[in-house]
């Protein structure tokens, strides 16, 4: 894809882009990766602590504690998004805060907050899954495909 784009550019454009690349501030990839790793790990540690809390104090097994843990994490992400803190965490951590379920919660909640001024049905309801919609769609579709493959392989006796 990148090559196709390059071929469509005139030599003048290519020349300019080389010049511009020199001045472009590059993303500090290694630093970003470390930050994402630490923040992502921290969020997951908090999630694990919450899981243990539910196993210990309530009637959940390791198997069933996943549900209340995710609900609690999303609740926390709602608080952080509502207080205007989560976007600062996001700027710092990048993927570290976007990938865990808290990032998913943030994408839905921030869109819901944003479109409040356009009414509840068309504004909030219509736009809430602006960012999360494709996550849900492709997640469900991928799960379907994987389940199908597994069923076929099991039927054939491979698995």
């Amino acid at each position, binding site marked *: 894809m990148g090559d196709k784009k390059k071929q469509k550019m005139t030599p003048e454009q290519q020349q300019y882009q080389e010049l511009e690349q020199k001045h472009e501030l590059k993303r500090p990839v290694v630093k970003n990766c470390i930050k994402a790793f630490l923040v992502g790990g921290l969020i997951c540690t908090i999630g694990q602590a919450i899981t*243990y*809390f539910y*196993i*210990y*104090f*309530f*009637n*959940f*097994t*390791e*198997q*069933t*504690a996943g*549900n209340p843990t995710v609900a609690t994490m999303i609740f926390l992400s709602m608080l952080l998004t*509502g*207080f*205007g803190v989560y976007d600062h965490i996001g700027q710092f951590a990048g993927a570290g805060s976007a990938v865990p379920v808290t990032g998913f919660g943030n994408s839905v909640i921030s869109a819901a907050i944003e479109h409040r001024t356009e009414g509840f049905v068309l504004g909030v309801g219509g736009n809430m899954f602006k960012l999360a919609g494709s996550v849900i769609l492709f997640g469900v579709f991928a799960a379907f495909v994987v389940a199908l493959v597994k069923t076929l392989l099991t039927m054939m006796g491979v698995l």
Partner: protein
Amino acid sequence: MMNMKQAVNLLAILIMLGAGTAGCTSFGKTSPESRASMIQSVNPDPGATNDLDEKDIKLAKKVKKDIAALDEIYDVAVITGKKEILVAYKVKHLKRFGMKRIEKEINKKLEKNYPDEDFIVSSDYKIFIEAVELRERMKDPSFPDKKAEEQLQRIISLKKELT
């Protein structure tokens, strides 16, 4: 957006709610053993719900020895009930990848050694805690056998829950 005062108030209310509901426990986590089982291997001695049955206790001891012999397992709790035997075990952290295989192995071994007995096998941490809890309760001689059996059945139904 909220100002600082409102935010602190809301957070305080939430923390109090959380701390309050922490008291809503069902079985009561009182014994030091079950509290410790979170961070170390407690090695509870095997028990039977029917206190007077020597055969049951001997059986439980044998089962525990068998399971503890497995390399990947570092803690086992066995409780014999009227109809089934509950075997709860903890797998070493790095060996958790083969959890399903270990369960199959244990089931095979138990089937081989004790073909007449019904086993409920679980690697779940909650089941282990509950089993240890029940064992501690049973050590008290005034704890009725019927109640112990009831609790055992409750633990088994908890194990069977999927969501």
